[in-house]
Every structure is written in C-alpha cells, then in structure tokens.
C-alpha cells in the first residue's frame, strides 16, 4: 500500500531522518514509537508534504508521491490527523468536516462519518474551537476520513486526552480500519495504546528505525526500554 524508501528529511543543514524504510500493508495498523525529538512528527510531516524530503521515495500504490504538494497527496489518498489536532477553530464542526471533502467534490458530510462519531452530529453547528480536546480529536479524524484516504496518518493522537477517551479512540480506529480497510500509521509515545491497536510496532530513534516487531511477538520490555528517558 504505502512504501517508504530510504527517505531523508532535513531542516536546513541538519538532517533529521537518515534514510527511513517502511512498508505498510493494506489494512495494517502500524505504530511508530519513539521519545520526543526522535523524528516521529517529522516523518508524518514528510509523508504529508509539509516537511520537504531531500532524498528517497514515498510510493502509494506504486506511484511516487514524494514530489507532490500536500493537497495533491490528499487527492491520491493520504489522510492526516496532525499533532495538536489543528482543527479550524472559528468554523463550525460541520464546516470543518466539509473542508475534507474538497478533493472528493461531495457537498454534504457522508453519514457514515457521523455514525462513527455521533457526538459530532450533535454539535455540528458548534464552533470547532469550543469543543473539548477529545471532541476536537474526533473532529480531526472525521475531517481526515472525509477525503476517503487509503492511508490515514495520526500524529500522537493520545496527547492531552483523558484515558477513558483514549480507550474509545482505540476501538474507533480499529473499527475504521475494519470498515474501510485502510492502512493506519500512528505515531505514539503511550505504549499501552500502541499495543492496543497496532498490528506492528516500530521504534524510531535519532531519525532511524532501530526496532520493528509484529504485535503478536512483541517484547514489551524491550520496546519500553526504547521509550524510557
């Protein structure tokens, strides 16, 4: 589905990602773990075309999207839920989701999105900025799903969200994967959440993949040791 091939990303002179190779299978949930500053968010931004990659390829269904701009990547089927959610604060919930419809050309929010997140239907006239953190996170996911992605990128979705909502989010994400058979890449620091949803866990350290393991055989203590400070 998505193949990242020796991807390098640099901010100015300093290289942050030193040749990342990742393959994501259709319908797979991949968790990318790592401490702060190890390159998780940069990787997400590079996949989305927000950070410029200096070398390497990002192949979606075989065609390279590394040179495309963000909106063109969305049209090819990449959905993005950024760190900090970044919903449009002064637009209504409904309008926020509709912005995701730009590439599909649909007018109204598909009802399956409201089925996934009933709370958004209740609040569809409310301004996005007045929602709670957990609701904003759901809104950001709904907005990304509106563009019918083949790959969904989530950057630290549990950040600043209360534990009960985190559990619910894990369930929702698995449901989304099962319903739409899309691939999900989630960057995460919370090990329990990652183990809860992922099919495969990958550890990023200093801009390189240092560890990769299937969920079934994962050595929790080892992954945890990568995350401890």
């Amino acid at each position, binding site marked *: 589905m998505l193949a990242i091939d020796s991807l390098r990303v640099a901010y100015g002179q300093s290289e942050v990602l030193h040749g990342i190779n990742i393959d994501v299978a259709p319908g797979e949930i991949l968790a990318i773990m790592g401490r702060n500053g190890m390159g998780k968010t940069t990787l997400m931004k590079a996949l989305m075309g927000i950070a410029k990659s200096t070398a390497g390829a990002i192949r979606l269904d075989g065609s390279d999207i590394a040179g495309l701009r963000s*909106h063109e990547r969305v049209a090819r089927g990449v959905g993005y839920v950024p760190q900090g959610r970044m919903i449009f604060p002064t637009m209504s919930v409904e309008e926020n989701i509709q*912005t995701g419809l730009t590439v599909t050309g649909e007018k109204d929010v598909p009802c399956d999105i409201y089925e996934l997140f009933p709370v958004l239907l209740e609040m569809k006239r409310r301004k996005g900025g007045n929602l709670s953190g957990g609701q904003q996170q759901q809104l950001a996911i709904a907005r990304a799903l509106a563009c019918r992605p083949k790959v969904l990128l989530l950057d630290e979705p549990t950040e600043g969200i209360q534990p009960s909502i985190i559990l619910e989010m894990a369930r929702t994400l698995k449901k989304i994967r099962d319903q739409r058979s899309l691939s999900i890449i989630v960057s995460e620091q919370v090990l329990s959440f990652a183990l809860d949803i992922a099919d495969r866990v990958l550890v990023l350290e200093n801009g390189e993949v240092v560890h990769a393991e299937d969920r079934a055989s994962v050595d929790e203590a080892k992954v945890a040791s990568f995350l401890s400070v």
Partner: protein
Amino acid sequence: MFGDYTLGQLGSIFVMQGFAGLILFSVFLLMALGLAIIFGQMGVINMAHGEFMILGAYMTYLTSKLFEAWAPGLLAGYFFFAMILAFLASAALGALVEWALISRLYKRPLDTMLATWGLSLMLQQVYRSVFGAREVGVDLPPWMLGSWQATDSIEIPINGMFVMALTLLITIGVAILMYKSRWGQQVRAVVQNRVMAGAVGINTERVDRATFALGCGIAGVAGSAFTMVGSTGPTAGQLYIVDSFLVVVFGGAQSLIGTIASAFTISQSRSTLEFFTSGSMAQVATLIGVVIILMIRPQGLFATKVRR
C-alpha cells in the same frame, strides 16, 4: 459650535451630513473589505490597494468616454458596464501581481509591504503617464444627477443613494461568498491554518490567487463608486488607503460585521465633525477616538472568541 443653529437646522444638518457620511462609508467599506480579505487570507498588507481602486476609477472614466463617443444613446446605463469593467481590470491586475510578486514573498510578510508600496508608486506613475497628472471626472448620466427633496431643509443626492445600494449589494454578495459557498469555506480554512488547509486537500495557492484578485476587484468597484463623489487623479488612492487600514484594524481583522461597523463609525464621525470643524480637525478627533478605543480593545471592535 452647535449654538448658532436652531434645533430644526441641527436635525437637518445631522441627516444630510450623515448621508454624506454614508457615501464615504460606502467607499471605505468596499476598500476595507478588499483589504481585510487579503490581509486576513495571506497576512499581506497591500499598500497598493488605493491604486487598485484608482484603476477602477480610471476604467469608469474610460468607459464613460467610450460611451460618449460611440454609444451616446446608452450613456444612461454606462455605469453598470463601467463597474463590471472596473472589477475585471482590477481583479486581473491583482491576479497578475499575486503571481509575479506576492506569491514569491509569502515567507517574508514584511517585505510584501515594501513590495506593494513600490508597486503603488509604479502604478501612480503609470497613471500619470497614461492619463496625465490632471484629475479627471466623469459625467454622470442625467438620472443620477439631482437630489431627492425629503423635507424643506433635507436634500439627499441620488448618486449617493445609488452608491450605497451598490455597496450594500456587494457586501451581501461577499458575505454570502465567504460564509455560504464552498469556496468561502476553503478561504476561511486557509486563513485559519494554511498548512493544515493544504493537508486536508485544499489547493492553497489557487485560493490565494483568487482571494487576492477578489480583494483587488472589490477595490476596483470602490473606485467606480468613488468617481461619483470625487475626482480621479493618479495619487487620489493615497488619500483613502490610511483610512481604509484604520477601518480594518478598528473593526478587528477577519470580522465582516466588524469591518462594516467600523467603516460606519469612522465615516460618520468624520463627516459630521467635518461640518462643524475643519476637515483636518475631524480627522484628528476621529483618530484620537479610534486610538483610545483600540487601547481598550486591542483586538478591534468585533473579534470572535474561541479556544485556540
């Protein structure tokens, strides 16, 4: 200053000055709308906005001359053609400027001020070379001349009413475009978070160009309206640009209602005070008022409150 007039006279003065203020309000509002759209969208302070307005004014002048020479029978309706032409000309120049100049400076917002200021000087010289340094005026079609005698002492000019109706229509049109259309939705998304707008699939560059063109086009229409109340010269735009900025800041950028309210307040206080004191005193008093209010409410009159 009120002592020399009877109560009835004062009433008439306020109504008529209020109405004169409404024409000023129309020009301010159209100018500020364009500025606010562009500033809100791209953070670009368009110092050449006055020149886009004057381009519209010159287009109106040209149209009136063309109609006089080639179709005198249609002269009564030339103004509508002039407005459309003014909009198209200013919007086209706006799109060109965005492509050639502004789009290369998005990472350096302060430099866009300098660049657009330079552009404004260049345009002024172009106008001077093409149309001459002398101010030109348009001949109003007969049906727009004269005034409506409301009471013995109150007269309201017809062209003024026309300009206001036009402004109202354009403002409503812009409001619908920004708040009801899908395009407006995309514009607002880009305004709030450019990077994220791109990441949900909005082509931000195309939105930018269209927005800049729209803002400039509205300035062109403002220029069209301006020909009815003032004479057009190469530097006439300079007289309005500062006030228009004032309107945008005072109203709170990004708020359409705020822009309307602030254009109204500023033009009315200017116009009413102008009658009783001199023009510059009115300007000073208005400025002081605006400064005091901005000290109390730095975000402007109307700013939306949300969690960020």
